[in-house]
């Protein structure tokens, strides 16, 4: 059969479509966005009424997926690693309720923080929730694992977590599809209608059930096609290698023959018997895993006595950052390779706000307004406008997590930093800013909130913004006073007028919302080009 050239993200989406998924739920987040976009662009998905619209945030996405699973249909929910923090509450509890229709949770980690604020490892969440985890080695396995994962989820009535990394998400390779497309499930209620009622007496039973099933998950891992023990003659060392890191290992052996035993891991919980076999026959174990040293820590134990384990914790591999073939070569005791050094004149070329971006005008007006006050008053958020931290703007003082601008400004104002300013985008505002705004209103906090409304979720490539056309209604509804909702157009020619409005609102000792509204320049370009194409 002909190979399709697919990104890891696309392979997962194709796998889900071919495995009879009825709906996908997500909030955009690099590097996970393309999974949902692939389904949104699929003719097959449209013809078969597969849900694929964006959710307001990862928590609402996770809960909607759980609802679809409750109704007996197969569903997938996708997010970047930090999105799983937002969805952690329903995720952890979905392990207790269990699933009905197959449910897969895809979390895309970002080791080396290519476009994230941390490099947390989603396998911790899987272990924490006690759910099985799948971690593909390549795009083909990513495709195959979706089918397997839905089957597993329906067999054990448990959500299955798939953990990928940026390298898997955004790397292309050939994928062969299964010959048959599976039908979607019919609507089918849970056999026990109290399964999803987590009152303590039911939750206790469900938790015991999960603990019991966990033994089966280990047995399944031991027999899994994704966990392979490949023997080798040299028993002085055994290698446990997880997910994509297996490729870096093989890269170091031209004939793909590793001289020592290798345990390739693609499914968790760890296959206990296979790990024991390696511990019994090898003098020491090298663990190669992208992300945190989870397997390494597990093998080592708290005291680190007994089994000799090497990896990220003892410095054999770096403690942080993405792995690559060279780091693995050094860990194997092989010579490193290096090309020419980078000439001294090479300077960085950081990303920047696009020429003509409305945020530029908003920042210039804000910075001028604040120039008469002491520095350090601007709490910002996650989006293109975070680039306002860089030169020449240097206009913001925080970027922590989705929605934190409003609540941090409130806390700082509570502490006496008045005026304090929050800068948040329209999509981030509906994701996690609305609840914080209600806190500020109820406390009548003296903060000025700038909701930079460019009408799109720009940073991740211009997805629909869930609050489009509703921003001031939301503010009004939550209780912002009409006189303190100010809409302005961020343009150079309006600079003086915009500064004047900002000054007025900064002087107000309550919650003000300023909405600089102008469409994203990239979104306009895309819209015009699409229009020309359709002509």
């Amino acid at each position: 059969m002909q190979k399709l050239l697919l990104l890891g993200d696309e392979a997962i989406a194709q796998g889900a479509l071919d495995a009879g998924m009825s709906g996908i739920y997500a909030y955009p987040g690099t590097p996970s966005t393309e999974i949902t976009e692939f389904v949104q662009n699929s003719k097959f998905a449209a013809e078969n009424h597969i849900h694929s619209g964006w959710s307001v945030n990862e928590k609402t996405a996770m809960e909607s997926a759980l609802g679809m699973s409750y109704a007996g249909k197969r569903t997938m929910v996708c997010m970047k690693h930090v999105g799983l923090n937002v969805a952690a509450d329903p995720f952890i509890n979905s392990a207790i309720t269990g699933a009905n229709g197959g449910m897969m949770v895809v979390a895309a980690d970002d080791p080396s923080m290519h476009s994230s604020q941390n490099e947390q490892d989603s396998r911790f969440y899987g272990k924490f929730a006690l759910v099985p985890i799948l971690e593909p080695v390549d795009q083909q396995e990513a495709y195959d694992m979706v089918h397997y994962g839905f089957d597993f989820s329906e067999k054990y009535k448990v959500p299955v977590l798939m953990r990928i990394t940026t390298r898997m998400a955004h790397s292309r390779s050939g994928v062969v599809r299964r010959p048959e497309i599976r039908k979607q499930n019919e609507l089918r209620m849970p056999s026990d209608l109290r399964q999803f009622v987590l009152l303590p007496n039911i939750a206790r039973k469900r938790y015991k059930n999960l603990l019991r099933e966990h033994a089966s998950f280990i047995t399944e891992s031991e027999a899994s096609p994704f966990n392979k023990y490949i023997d080798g003659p040299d028993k002085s060392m055994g290698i446990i290698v997880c997910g994509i890191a297996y490729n870096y290992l093989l890269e170091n052996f031209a004939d793909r023959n590793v001289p020592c035993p290798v345990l390739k891991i693609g499914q968790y919980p760890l296959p206990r018997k296979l790990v024991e076999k390696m511990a019994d026959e090898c003098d020491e174990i090298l663990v190669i895993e992208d992300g945190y040293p989870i397997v390494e820590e597990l093998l080592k134990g708290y005291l680190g006595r007994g089994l000799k384990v090497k990896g990220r914790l003892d410095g054999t591999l770096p403690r942080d950052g993405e792995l690559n073939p060279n780091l693995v070569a050094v860990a194997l005791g092989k010579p490193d390779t290096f090309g020419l050094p980078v000439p001294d004149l090479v300077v960085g070329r950081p990303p920047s706000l696009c020429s003509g971006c409305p945020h530029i005008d908003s920042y210039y007006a804000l910075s001028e307004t604040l120039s008469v006050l002491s520095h350090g008053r601007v709490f910002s958020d996650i989006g293109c406008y975070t680039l306002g931290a860089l030169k020449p703007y240097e206009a913001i003082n925080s970027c922590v997590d989705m929605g934190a601008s409003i609540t941090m400004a409130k806390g700082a104002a509570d502490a006496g930093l008045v005026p304090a300013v929050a800068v948040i985008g329209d999509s981030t505002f509906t994701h996690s800013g609305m609840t914080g705004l209600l806190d500020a209103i109820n406390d009548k906090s003296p903060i000025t909130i700038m909701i930079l409304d460019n009408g799109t979720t720009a940073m991740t490539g211009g997805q629909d913004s869930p609050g489009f056309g509703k921003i001031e209604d939301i503010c009004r509804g939550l209780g912002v006073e009409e006189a303190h909702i100010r809409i302005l157009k961020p343009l150079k020619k309006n600079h003086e007028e915009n500064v004047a409005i900002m000054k007025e609102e900064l002087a107000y000792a309550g919650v003000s919302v300023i909405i600089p509204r102008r469409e994203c320049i990239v979104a306009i370009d895309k819209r015009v080009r699409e229009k020309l194409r359709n002509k």
Partner: protein
Amino acid sequence: MKKDIILAGVGGQGIISIASIIGYAALEQGMFLKQSEVHGMSQRGGDVMSNLRISHNPIASDLIPFGQADMIISIEPLESLRYLPYLSGEGWVITNTRPFNNIPNYPAIDEIMREIAKVPHHIALDADATAKVAGSAKATNIVMLGAASPFLGMAYEKIEDAIRFIFRKKGDKIIELNLSALRAGCDFANQNM
């Protein structure tokens, strides 16, 4: 046959199109392929880079090891230098000489050219000007692909076929413009090797 290629440039310069064309040509010949890129932040006028690996045998790593790339194809001169640690001793740097200056501290272009000249095997051409002469200012990336074509280890016609396929929805005129851009880049490389 195995080729490990670093594609470099600035967001929006079209390195992904080059990857798609080489990738399609490779797959049509029954080769294996892995191509890795970074999306997100890097697209906002920042530096972008893609690892492209094609081989008749299965490929293990998505990432090319340092010191082992067969070539660096760069649509921007400063960017061609950023990835030199990946280049093998026998490797080629094939770069555009037209700067994309969107940073305040962009180095002097003659100093950049001096550094490029130090790389043992290199081809440097003004791909923007070449593209314009060939009939399409937008085809800078295809000129660079043409300049790299003698080093790809595949028949020139296969790359032409791939261009016809990738641009099939854009009409015959666009295809012809890109084919002449490819030819112009290829001719330059053959005369300046």
